[in-house]
Protein backbone atom coordinates (compact mmCIF):
# COMPACT_ATOMS: atom_id res chain seq x y z
CA UNK A 1 0.00 0.00 0.00
CA UNK A 2 2.91 2.32 0.70
CA UNK A 3 3.98 2.22 -2.95
CA UNK A 4 0.44 3.10 -4.04
CA UNK A 5 0.35 6.02 -1.63
CA UNK A 6 3.74 7.15 -2.93
CA UNK A 7 2.49 6.94 -6.51
CA UNK A 8 -0.33 9.41 -5.81
CA UNK A 9 1.90 11.54 -3.62
CA UNK A 10 4.33 12.00 -6.50
CA UNK A 11 1.51 12.55 -8.99
CA UNK A 12 0.18 15.31 -6.82
CA UNK A 13 3.49 17.06 -6.05
CA UNK A 14 5.19 16.32 -9.38
CA UNK A 15 2.76 18.47 -11.30
CA UNK A 16 4.16 21.43 -9.35
CA UNK A 17 7.84 20.51 -9.02
CA UNK A 18 8.56 19.29 -12.55
CA UNK A 19 7.41 22.50 -14.31
CA UNK A 20 9.29 24.53 -11.70
CA UNK A 21 12.49 22.55 -12.30
CA UNK A 22 12.13 22.99 -16.04
CA UNK A 23 11.62 26.72 -15.57
CA UNK A 24 14.71 26.99 -13.37
CA UNK A 25 16.94 25.19 -15.86
CA UNK A 26 15.39 27.18 -18.71
CA UNK A 27 15.95 30.51 -16.95
CA UNK A 28 19.55 29.62 -16.16
CA UNK A 29 20.09 28.73 -19.82
CA UNK A 30 18.60 32.05 -20.98
CA UNK A 31 20.64 33.92 -18.37
CA UNK A 32 23.75 32.16 -19.58
CA UNK A 33 22.87 33.28 -23.12
CA UNK A 34 22.51 36.92 -22.03
CA UNK A 35 25.81 36.80 -20.14
CA UNK A 36 27.51 35.44 -23.25
CA UNK A 37 25.96 38.05 -25.60
CA UNK A 38 26.43 40.93 -23.16
CA UNK A 39 30.08 41.20 -24.04
CA UNK A 40 29.15 42.36 -27.55
CA UNK A 41 25.96 44.42 -26.91
CA UNK A 42 25.71 46.99 -24.11
CA UNK A 43 21.88 47.03 -23.80
CA UNK A 44 21.87 43.38 -22.79
CA UNK A 45 22.54 44.42 -19.20
CA UNK A 46 18.78 45.03 -18.59
CA UNK A 47 17.47 41.54 -19.37
CA UNK A 48 20.54 40.12 -17.71
CA UNK A 49 19.67 41.82 -14.40
CA UNK A 50 16.03 40.79 -14.71
CA UNK A 51 16.90 37.18 -15.39
CA UNK A 52 19.45 37.15 -12.58
CA UNK A 53 16.70 38.27 -10.21
CA UNK A 54 14.32 35.67 -11.62
CA UNK A 55 17.00 33.02 -11.23
CA UNK A 56 17.57 33.89 -7.57
CA UNK A 57 13.82 33.86 -6.89
CA UNK A 58 13.49 30.45 -8.57
CA UNK A 59 16.41 28.96 -6.62
CA UNK A 60 14.79 30.11 -3.38
CA UNK A 61 11.39 28.83 -4.58
CA UNK A 62 12.74 25.40 -5.47
CA UNK A 63 13.81 24.85 -1.85
CA UNK A 64 11.07 26.80 -0.08
CA UNK A 65 8.44 24.86 -2.00
CA UNK A 66 9.75 21.55 -0.65
CA UNK A 67 8.80 22.72 2.84
CA UNK A 68 5.65 24.57 1.82
CA UNK A 69 4.30 21.58 -0.10
CA UNK A 70 5.36 19.17 2.65
CA UNK A 71 3.17 21.12 5.07
CA UNK A 72 0.31 21.76 2.65
CA UNK A 73 0.07 18.16 1.52
CA UNK A 74 0.05 16.87 5.07
CA UNK A 75 -2.48 19.42 6.29
CA UNK A 76 -4.87 19.27 3.35
CA UNK A 77 -4.59 15.64 2.45
CA UNK A 78 -4.60 14.13 5.93
CA UNK A 79 -6.22 16.75 8.15
CA UNK A 80 -8.50 18.59 5.71
CA UNK A 81 -11.53 17.38 3.79
CA UNK A 82 -9.38 15.02 1.73
CA UNK A 83 -8.63 13.27 5.01
CA UNK A 84 -12.13 11.78 4.83
CA UNK A 85 -10.93 9.81 1.84
CA UNK A 86 -7.35 9.13 2.93
CA UNK A 87 -8.22 7.88 6.41
CA UNK A 88 -10.93 5.55 5.13
CA UNK A 89 -8.52 3.84 2.72
CA UNK A 90 -7.44 0.40 3.92
CA UNK A 91 -4.04 1.80 4.89
CA UNK A 92 -2.27 2.05 8.25
CA UNK A 93 -1.72 5.59 9.58
CA UNK A 94 2.06 5.18 9.69
CA UNK A 95 2.03 4.42 5.97
CA UNK A 96 0.46 7.82 5.34
CA UNK A 97 3.19 9.51 7.39
CA UNK A 98 5.94 7.53 5.65
CA UNK A 99 4.53 8.33 2.21
CA UNK A 100 4.53 12.05 2.97
CA UNK A 101 8.01 11.91 4.51
CA UNK A 102 9.62 9.93 1.70
CA UNK A 103 8.09 12.23 -0.92
CA UNK A 104 9.45 15.31 0.84
CA UNK A 105 12.94 13.78 1.12
CA UNK A 106 12.97 12.82 -2.55
CA UNK A 107 11.92 16.32 -3.64
CA UNK A 108 14.59 17.82 -1.38
CA UNK A 109 17.25 15.69 -3.09
CA UNK A 110 15.79 16.50 -6.51
CA UNK A 111 15.84 20.23 -5.72
CA UNK A 112 19.51 20.01 -4.71
CA UNK A 113 20.32 18.13 -7.93
CA UNK A 114 18.43 20.62 -10.12
CA UNK A 115 20.02 23.59 -8.35
CA UNK A 116 23.47 22.10 -9.01
CA UNK A 117 22.47 21.45 -12.62
CA UNK A 118 21.41 25.08 -13.05
CA UNK A 119 24.76 26.27 -11.66
CA UNK A 120 26.56 23.99 -14.09
CA UNK A 121 24.48 25.47 -16.94
CA UNK A 122 25.46 28.97 -15.82
CA UNK A 123 29.13 28.20 -15.33
CA UNK A 124 29.57 26.00 -18.35
CA UNK A 125 32.24 26.88 -20.84
CA UNK A 126 34.58 24.89 -23.00
CA UNK A 127 36.57 22.45 -20.87
CA UNK A 128 34.30 22.98 -17.81
CA UNK A 129 34.12 19.34 -16.81
CA UNK A 130 37.84 18.78 -17.39
CA UNK A 131 38.65 21.76 -15.16
CA UNK A 132 36.20 20.59 -12.52
CA UNK A 133 37.65 17.10 -12.36
CA UNK A 134 41.16 18.54 -12.22
CA UNK A 135 40.12 20.71 -9.31
CA UNK A 136 38.54 17.79 -7.50
CA UNK A 137 41.72 15.79 -8.02
CA UNK A 138 43.82 18.58 -6.55
CA UNK A 139 41.44 18.84 -3.61
CA UNK A 140 41.75 15.13 -2.90
CA UNK A 141 45.52 15.42 -3.15
CA UNK A 142 45.52 18.30 -0.67
CA UNK A 143 43.38 16.26 1.70
CA UNK A 144 45.89 13.44 1.44
CA UNK A 145 48.66 15.81 2.51
CA UNK A 146 46.91 17.26 5.55
CA UNK A 147 44.69 14.48 6.80
CA UNK A 148 44.84 10.74 6.90
CA UNK A 149 42.31 9.64 4.33
CA UNK A 150 40.17 7.14 6.30
CA UNK A 151 39.59 9.46 9.25
CA UNK A 152 38.83 12.39 6.94
CA UNK A 153 36.36 10.31 4.93
CA UNK A 154 34.69 9.13 8.13
CA UNK A 155 34.37 12.71 9.35
CA UNK A 156 32.80 13.86 6.08
CA UNK A 157 30.41 10.92 6.07
CA UNK A 158 29.31 11.58 9.66
CA UNK A 159 28.77 15.22 8.73
CA UNK A 160 26.61 14.18 5.76
CA UNK A 161 24.64 11.77 7.95
CA UNK A 162 24.01 14.64 10.37
CA UNK A 163 22.78 16.83 7.50
CA UNK A 164 20.38 14.14 6.27
CA UNK A 165 19.05 13.30 9.72
CA UNK A 166 18.54 16.98 10.53
CA UNK A 167 16.58 17.52 7.32
CA UNK A 168 14.36 14.51 7.94
CA UNK A 169 13.81 15.62 11.54
CA UNK A 170 12.80 19.03 10.21
CA UNK A 171 10.03 17.51 8.09
CA UNK A 172 8.88 15.27 10.94
CA UNK A 173 8.73 18.25 13.27
CA UNK A 174 6.32 19.98 10.87
CA UNK A 175 4.17 16.84 10.60
CA UNK A 176 4.09 16.28 14.36
CA UNK A 177 3.16 19.93 14.94
CA UNK A 178 0.19 19.69 12.59
CA UNK A 179 -0.89 16.32 13.98
CA UNK A 180 -0.88 17.81 17.49
CA UNK A 181 -2.25 21.19 16.36
CA UNK A 182 -5.42 19.66 14.90
CA UNK A 183 -6.51 18.92 18.47
CA UNK A 184 -7.31 22.61 18.87
CA UNK A 185 -10.72 22.45 17.22
CA UNK A 186 -11.61 25.48 15.17
CA UNK A 187 -8.08 26.94 15.48
CA UNK A 188 -6.06 24.19 13.95
CA UNK A 189 -3.47 26.39 12.23
CA UNK A 190 -2.86 28.37 15.42
CA UNK A 191 -2.63 25.05 17.24
CA UNK A 192 -0.06 23.78 14.75
CA UNK A 193 2.07 26.91 15.11
CA UNK A 194 1.93 26.69 18.91
CA UNK A 195 2.84 23.00 18.75
CA UNK A 196 5.74 23.86 16.46
CA UNK A 197 7.11 26.39 18.93
CA UNK A 198 6.66 23.83 21.68
CA UNK A 199 8.67 21.21 19.79
CA UNK A 200 11.23 23.84 18.80
CA UNK A 201 11.75 24.85 22.43
CA UNK A 202 12.17 21.23 23.48
CA UNK A 203 14.74 20.58 20.74
CA UNK A 204 16.63 23.76 21.73
CA UNK A 205 16.72 22.66 25.36
CA UNK A 206 18.06 19.27 24.32
CA UNK A 207 20.83 20.81 22.20
CA UNK A 208 21.69 23.15 25.06
CA UNK A 209 22.04 20.18 27.37
CA UNK A 210 24.20 18.47 24.77
CA UNK A 211 26.48 21.51 24.55
CA UNK A 212 26.70 21.75 28.35
CA UNK A 213 27.63 18.09 28.64
CA UNK A 214 30.12 18.27 25.78
CA UNK A 215 31.73 21.41 27.17
CA UNK A 216 33.22 19.27 29.92
CA UNK A 217 34.95 17.00 27.42
CA UNK A 218 38.00 17.19 25.18
CA UNK A 219 35.73 17.24 22.13
CA UNK A 220 34.58 20.74 22.93
CA UNK A 221 38.15 22.04 23.48
CA UNK A 222 39.16 20.76 20.08
CA UNK A 223 36.06 22.20 18.39
CA UNK A 224 36.59 25.59 20.03
CA UNK A 225 40.21 25.72 19.01
CA UNK A 226 39.10 24.84 15.47
CA UNK A 227 42.14 22.66 15.17
CA UNK A 228 41.31 20.68 12.03
CA UNK A 229 44.52 18.65 12.23
CA UNK A 230 42.84 16.76 15.07
CA UNK A 231 40.90 14.89 12.41
CA UNK A 232 44.09 12.84 12.12
CA UNK A 233 43.33 11.34 15.51
CA UNK A 234 41.43 8.61 13.67
CA UNK A 235 37.88 7.73 12.69
CA UNK A 236 36.54 8.89 16.04
CA UNK A 237 38.16 12.31 16.22
CA UNK A 238 36.49 15.26 18.02
CA UNK A 239 34.74 16.35 14.82
CA UNK A 240 33.24 13.05 13.76
CA UNK A 241 32.31 12.37 17.39
CA UNK A 242 30.45 15.69 17.55
CA UNK A 243 28.60 15.01 14.29
CA UNK A 244 27.70 11.51 15.38
CA UNK A 245 26.39 12.61 18.78
CA UNK A 246 24.34 15.40 17.18
CA UNK A 247 23.00 12.96 14.57
CA UNK A 248 21.98 10.46 17.25
CA UNK A 249 20.15 13.12 19.24
CA UNK A 250 18.36 14.25 16.08
CA UNK A 251 17.47 10.68 15.29
CA UNK A 252 15.88 10.28 18.72
CA UNK A 253 13.87 13.47 18.13
CA UNK A 254 12.88 12.30 14.65
CA UNK A 255 11.61 8.94 15.92
CA UNK A 256 9.72 10.70 18.74
CA UNK A 257 8.01 13.00 16.24
CA UNK A 258 7.10 10.00 14.11
CA UNK A 259 5.62 8.17 17.08
CA UNK A 260 3.66 11.29 18.14
CA UNK A 261 2.33 11.87 14.60
CA UNK A 262 1.32 8.26 14.20
CA UNK A 263 -0.40 8.21 17.59
CA UNK A 264 -2.34 11.38 16.82
CA UNK A 265 -3.54 10.10 13.43
CA UNK A 266 -4.42 6.72 14.86
CA UNK A 267 -6.09 7.70 18.10
CA UNK A 268 -6.81 11.41 18.21
CA UNK A 269 -7.82 12.26 14.67
CA UNK A 270 -10.61 14.81 14.60
CA UNK A 271 -11.46 16.00 11.11
CA UNK A 272 -13.65 19.06 10.89
Amino acid at each position, binding site marked *: *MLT*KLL*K*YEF*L*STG*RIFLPLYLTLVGVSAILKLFITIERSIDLMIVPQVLFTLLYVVLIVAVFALVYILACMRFY*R*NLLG*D*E*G*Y*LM*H*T*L*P*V*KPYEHVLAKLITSIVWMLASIAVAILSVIVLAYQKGFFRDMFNMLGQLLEAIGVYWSKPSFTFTVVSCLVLAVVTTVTGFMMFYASMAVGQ*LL*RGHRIVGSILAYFGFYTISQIISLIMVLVLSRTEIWEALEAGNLSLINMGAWNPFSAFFAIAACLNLVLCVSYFVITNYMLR*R*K*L*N*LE
Partner: protein
Amino acid sequence: MNQNSGFDSHEIKAGELEPAVHAGRSTDESREESGSQSVVPLLECRRLTMRYAGNRDALSDIYLKIYGGRIIGLLGPNGSGKTTFIKLVCGLLRPTSGEVLINGHEPGVKSKLAVSYLPDRIYLNDWMRVHQLVSFFEDFYDNFDAEKAYSMISRLGINAGDKLKNMSKGTKEKVQLILTMSRNASLYLLDEPIGGVDPAARDFILSTILTNYNPGATVILSTHIISDVERILDDVIFLSNGKIMLAGAADDIRAKNGCSIDDLFREVFKC
Protein backbone atom coordinates in the same frame (compact mmCIF):
# COMPACT_ATOMS: atom_id res chain seq x y z
CA MET B 1 -42.84 8.74 22.05
CA ASN B 2 -41.03 8.15 25.26
CA GLN B 3 -42.27 4.63 25.71
CA ASN B 4 -39.43 3.57 23.43
CA SER B 5 -36.61 5.65 24.78
CA GLY B 6 -36.00 3.27 27.66
CA PHE B 7 -34.56 0.75 25.24
CA ASP B 8 -30.82 0.54 25.42
CA SER B 9 -30.27 -2.26 22.97
CA HIS B 10 -31.36 -2.47 19.38
CA GLU B 11 -31.04 -5.18 16.86
CA ILE B 12 -31.67 -5.05 13.16
CA LYS B 13 -31.51 -8.35 11.37
CA ALA B 14 -32.01 -9.59 7.86
CA GLY B 15 -35.19 -11.45 7.05
CA GLU B 16 -36.56 -11.24 10.54
CA LEU B 17 -40.31 -11.43 10.84
CA GLU B 18 -40.69 -10.45 14.47
CA PRO B 19 -40.14 -6.87 15.48
CA ALA B 20 -36.50 -6.02 14.92
CA VAL B 21 -36.22 -4.02 18.08
CA HIS B 22 -35.17 -5.89 21.18
CA ALA B 23 -35.77 -4.34 24.53
CA GLY B 24 -32.94 -6.18 26.23
CA ARG B 25 -31.06 -4.62 29.10
CA SER B 26 -27.67 -5.43 27.66
CA THR B 27 -26.28 -6.76 24.43
CA ASP B 28 -25.49 -10.09 25.99
CA GLU B 29 -29.05 -10.58 27.10
CA SER B 30 -30.49 -9.61 23.79
CA ARG B 31 -28.14 -11.99 22.10
CA GLU B 32 -29.51 -14.80 24.23
CA GLU B 33 -33.06 -13.71 23.48
CA SER B 34 -32.61 -13.76 19.76
CA GLY B 35 -30.52 -16.92 19.91
CA SER B 36 -28.04 -15.63 17.32
CA GLN B 37 -24.76 -16.33 19.13
CA SER B 38 -23.30 -17.96 16.06
CA VAL B 39 -23.89 -15.03 13.70
CA VAL B 40 -21.44 -12.17 14.09
CA PRO B 41 -23.31 -8.93 13.44
CA LEU B 42 -22.10 -6.82 10.54
CA LEU B 43 -22.04 -3.85 12.87
CA GLU B 44 -22.20 -3.93 16.62
CA CYS B 45 -22.01 -1.07 19.08
CA ARG B 46 -21.56 -1.66 22.79
CA ARG B 47 -21.94 1.24 25.21
CA LEU B 48 -20.63 3.42 22.41
CA THR B 49 -19.99 6.93 23.73
CA MET B 50 -18.32 9.89 22.09
CA ARG B 51 -17.53 13.13 23.82
CA TYR B 52 -15.68 15.97 22.11
CA ALA B 53 -13.36 17.94 24.39
CA GLY B 54 -15.37 20.32 26.55
CA ASN B 55 -18.77 19.40 25.11
CA ARG B 56 -21.69 17.25 26.12
CA ASP B 57 -21.79 13.71 24.77
CA ALA B 58 -22.26 13.67 21.02
CA LEU B 59 -23.28 10.03 21.40
CA SER B 60 -23.95 8.25 24.64
CA ASP B 61 -24.33 4.63 25.51
CA ILE B 62 -25.35 3.31 22.12
CA TYR B 63 -26.15 -0.39 21.90
CA LEU B 64 -26.85 -1.59 18.41
CA LYS B 65 -26.60 -4.70 16.30
CA ILE B 66 -27.02 -4.58 12.58
CA TYR B 67 -26.95 -7.54 10.19
CA GLY B 68 -26.60 -7.80 6.43
CA GLY B 69 -29.19 -7.14 3.75
CA ARG B 70 -30.95 -4.08 5.16
CA ILE B 71 -31.41 -0.49 4.09
CA ILE B 72 -31.41 1.53 7.25
CA GLY B 73 -32.30 5.18 7.68
CA LEU B 74 -30.33 6.98 10.37
CA LEU B 75 -32.72 9.79 11.13
CA GLY B 76 -32.47 12.72 13.45
CA PRO B 77 -32.34 16.49 13.52
CA ASN B 78 -29.10 18.42 13.02
CA GLY B 79 -26.64 17.80 15.82
CA SER B 80 -28.27 14.57 16.95
CA GLY B 81 -25.09 12.56 16.42
CA LYS B 82 -25.66 11.05 12.96
CA THR B 83 -22.33 12.13 11.49
CA THR B 84 -20.46 11.28 14.69
CA PHE B 85 -21.95 7.79 14.60
CA ILE B 86 -20.93 7.27 10.98
CA LYS B 87 -17.42 8.63 11.59
CA LEU B 88 -16.98 6.23 14.51
CA VAL B 89 -18.01 3.27 12.38
CA CYS B 90 -15.62 4.13 9.56
CA GLY B 91 -12.75 4.76 11.95
CA LEU B 92 -12.40 8.52 11.49
CA LEU B 93 -13.02 8.96 15.20
CA ARG B 94 -12.14 6.87 18.22
CA PRO B 95 -14.88 6.43 20.81
CA THR B 96 -14.44 8.03 24.23
CA SER B 97 -15.69 4.76 25.69
CA GLY B 98 -17.43 1.63 24.55
CA GLU B 99 -16.70 -0.09 21.31
CA VAL B 100 -17.80 -0.41 17.73
CA LEU B 101 -17.20 -3.68 15.90
CA ILE B 102 -17.45 -4.37 12.20
CA ASN B 103 -17.73 -8.11 11.52
CA GLY B 104 -16.44 -8.51 15.06
CA HIS B 105 -13.36 -6.33 14.62
CA GLU B 106 -12.55 -2.80 15.68
CA PRO B 107 -12.22 -0.29 12.85
CA GLY B 108 -8.92 -0.82 11.07
CA VAL B 109 -7.49 -1.77 7.71
CA LYS B 110 -9.80 -4.80 7.50
CA SER B 111 -12.98 -2.92 8.32
CA LYS B 112 -12.08 -0.10 5.96
CA LEU B 113 -12.04 -2.60 3.13
CA ALA B 114 -15.50 -3.82 4.13
CA VAL B 115 -17.02 -0.35 4.59
CA SER B 116 -17.77 2.04 1.77
CA TYR B 117 -18.21 5.55 3.07
CA LEU B 118 -19.71 8.66 1.52
CA PRO B 119 -19.06 11.72 3.70
CA ASP B 120 -21.27 14.78 3.89
CA ARG B 121 -18.67 16.86 2.03
CA ILE B 122 -16.49 16.78 -1.07
CA TYR B 123 -13.46 14.68 -0.14
CA LEU B 124 -11.90 14.43 -3.58
CA ASN B 125 -8.97 16.64 -4.50
CA ASP B 126 -9.80 18.97 -7.35
CA TRP B 127 -6.75 18.45 -9.57
CA MET B 128 -7.59 14.87 -10.51
CA ARG B 129 -9.62 13.84 -13.51
CA VAL B 130 -12.52 11.43 -13.15
CA HIS B 131 -10.64 8.52 -14.73
CA GLN B 132 -7.71 9.15 -12.37
CA LEU B 133 -10.09 8.94 -9.43
CA VAL B 134 -11.44 5.67 -10.74
CA SER B 135 -7.89 4.25 -10.91
CA PHE B 136 -7.25 5.64 -7.44
CA PHE B 137 -10.17 3.67 -6.03
CA GLU B 138 -9.19 0.64 -8.10
CA ASP B 139 -5.65 0.81 -6.69
CA PHE B 140 -6.68 0.94 -3.07
CA TYR B 141 -9.82 -1.18 -2.95
CA ASP B 142 -9.73 -4.77 -4.19
CA ASN B 143 -13.53 -4.76 -4.21
CA PHE B 144 -13.88 -1.74 -6.52
CA ASP B 145 -15.64 -2.43 -9.80
CA ALA B 146 -14.26 0.02 -12.36
CA GLU B 147 -16.54 -1.22 -15.11
CA LYS B 148 -19.59 -0.46 -13.01
CA ALA B 149 -18.21 2.98 -12.20
CA TYR B 150 -17.61 3.82 -15.86
CA SER B 151 -21.07 2.65 -16.89
CA MET B 152 -22.66 4.91 -14.26
CA ILE B 153 -20.38 7.77 -15.27
CA SER B 154 -21.40 7.53 -18.89
CA ARG B 155 -25.07 7.03 -18.04
CA LEU B 156 -24.96 10.32 -16.18
CA GLY B 157 -23.24 12.08 -19.04
CA ILE B 158 -20.12 12.85 -17.01
CA ASN B 159 -16.96 13.13 -19.05
CA ALA B 160 -14.26 10.83 -17.61
CA GLY B 161 -11.58 13.25 -18.78
CA ASP B 162 -12.96 16.19 -16.83
CA LYS B 163 -11.17 17.64 -13.85
CA LEU B 164 -13.07 17.84 -10.59
CA LYS B 165 -12.06 21.51 -10.44
CA ASN B 166 -14.34 22.35 -13.38
CA MET B 167 -17.41 20.54 -12.07
CA SER B 168 -20.42 21.87 -10.24
CA LYS B 169 -20.95 20.80 -6.65
CA GLY B 170 -23.82 18.55 -7.67
CA THR B 171 -21.71 16.75 -10.27
CA LYS B 172 -18.89 16.26 -7.77
CA GLU B 173 -21.40 14.73 -5.38
CA LYS B 174 -22.58 12.39 -8.11
CA VAL B 175 -18.99 11.33 -8.85
CA GLN B 176 -18.46 10.61 -5.17
CA LEU B 177 -21.64 8.59 -4.98
CA ILE B 178 -20.66 6.59 -8.06
CA LEU B 179 -17.24 5.82 -6.58
CA THR B 180 -18.77 4.83 -3.25
CA MET B 181 -21.46 2.60 -4.78
CA SER B 182 -19.06 0.93 -7.24
CA ARG B 183 -17.40 -0.90 -4.38
CA ASN B 184 -18.63 -4.35 -3.47
CA ALA B 185 -18.59 -3.55 0.21
CA SER B 186 -20.56 -5.22 2.96
CA LEU B 187 -21.54 -1.99 4.68
CA TYR B 188 -22.31 1.28 2.93
CA LEU B 189 -22.32 4.38 5.10
CA LEU B 190 -23.90 7.30 3.31
CA ASP B 191 -23.90 10.56 5.22
CA GLU B 192 -26.59 12.91 3.87
CA PRO B 193 -26.39 11.53 0.32
CA ILE B 194 -29.34 13.62 -0.81
CA GLY B 195 -28.70 16.70 1.29
CA GLY B 196 -27.60 19.20 -1.31
CA VAL B 197 -29.15 18.05 -4.56
CA ASP B 198 -32.34 18.83 -6.43
CA PRO B 199 -35.34 16.44 -6.36
CA ALA B 200 -34.59 14.96 -9.79
CA ALA B 201 -31.03 14.15 -8.72
CA ARG B 202 -32.44 12.71 -5.49
CA ASP B 203 -34.39 10.11 -7.42
CA PHE B 204 -31.30 9.25 -9.40
CA ILE B 205 -29.25 8.89 -6.23
CA LEU B 206 -31.83 6.69 -4.53
CA SER B 207 -32.16 4.45 -7.56
CA THR B 208 -28.36 4.27 -7.78
CA ILE B 209 -28.23 3.15 -4.19
CA LEU B 210 -31.00 0.62 -4.68
CA THR B 211 -29.68 -0.91 -7.88
CA ASN B 212 -26.00 -0.92 -7.07
CA TYR B 213 -25.48 -2.16 -3.57
CA ASN B 214 -24.81 -5.82 -3.34
CA PRO B 215 -27.78 -7.70 -1.86
CA GLY B 216 -25.99 -9.22 1.10
CA ALA B 217 -24.79 -5.80 2.15
CA THR B 218 -26.37 -3.26 4.44
CA VAL B 219 -26.80 0.40 3.62
CA ILE B 220 -27.00 2.97 6.39
CA LEU B 221 -27.98 6.38 5.17
CA SER B 222 -28.32 9.40 7.35
CA THR B 223 -30.71 12.16 6.47
CA HIS B 224 -33.23 14.60 7.79
CA ILE B 225 -35.17 14.70 4.53
CA ILE B 226 -37.26 11.63 5.19
CA SER B 227 -40.13 11.89 2.76
CA ASP B 228 -37.89 11.09 -0.22
CA VAL B 229 -36.16 8.11 1.29
CA GLU B 230 -38.94 6.57 3.33
CA ARG B 231 -40.08 4.23 0.59
CA ILE B 232 -36.70 2.49 0.31
CA LEU B 233 -36.03 2.02 4.03
CA ASP B 234 -36.32 -1.40 5.68
CA ASP B 235 -35.41 -0.12 9.11
CA VAL B 236 -35.08 3.20 10.82
CA ILE B 237 -33.05 4.49 13.72
CA PHE B 238 -34.13 7.75 15.34
CA LEU B 239 -31.27 9.60 16.97
CA SER B 240 -31.90 12.42 19.39
CA ASN B 241 -29.26 14.22 21.44
CA GLY B 242 -26.81 11.39 20.98
CA LYS B 243 -29.19 8.66 22.06
CA ILE B 244 -31.20 6.09 20.13
CA MET B 245 -34.77 7.10 20.62
CA LEU B 246 -36.38 4.47 18.50
CA ALA B 247 -35.15 1.70 16.25
CA GLY B 248 -36.87 -1.00 14.30
CA ALA B 249 -38.42 -2.14 11.07
CA ALA B 250 -40.06 0.72 9.18
CA ASP B 251 -43.28 -1.26 8.60
CA ASP B 252 -43.66 -2.09 12.28
CA ILE B 253 -43.15 1.48 13.31
CA ARG B 254 -45.67 2.68 10.76
CA ALA B 255 -48.21 0.09 11.91
CA LYS B 256 -47.68 0.81 15.58
CA ASN B 257 -47.97 4.55 15.27
CA GLY B 258 -50.49 4.65 12.48
CA CYS B 259 -48.55 7.21 10.48
CA SER B 260 -45.63 7.46 8.09
CA ILE B 261 -42.05 7.68 9.38
CA ASP B 262 -41.94 11.21 8.01
CA ASP B 263 -44.99 12.24 10.04
CA LEU B 264 -43.63 10.50 13.09
CA PHE B 265 -40.35 12.33 12.72
CA ARG B 266 -42.11 15.68 12.45
CA GLU B 267 -44.13 14.90 15.55
CA VAL B 268 -41.21 13.64 17.63
CA PHE B 269 -38.84 16.43 16.74
CA LYS B 270 -41.38 19.23 16.69
CA CYS B 271 -39.74 22.54 17.51
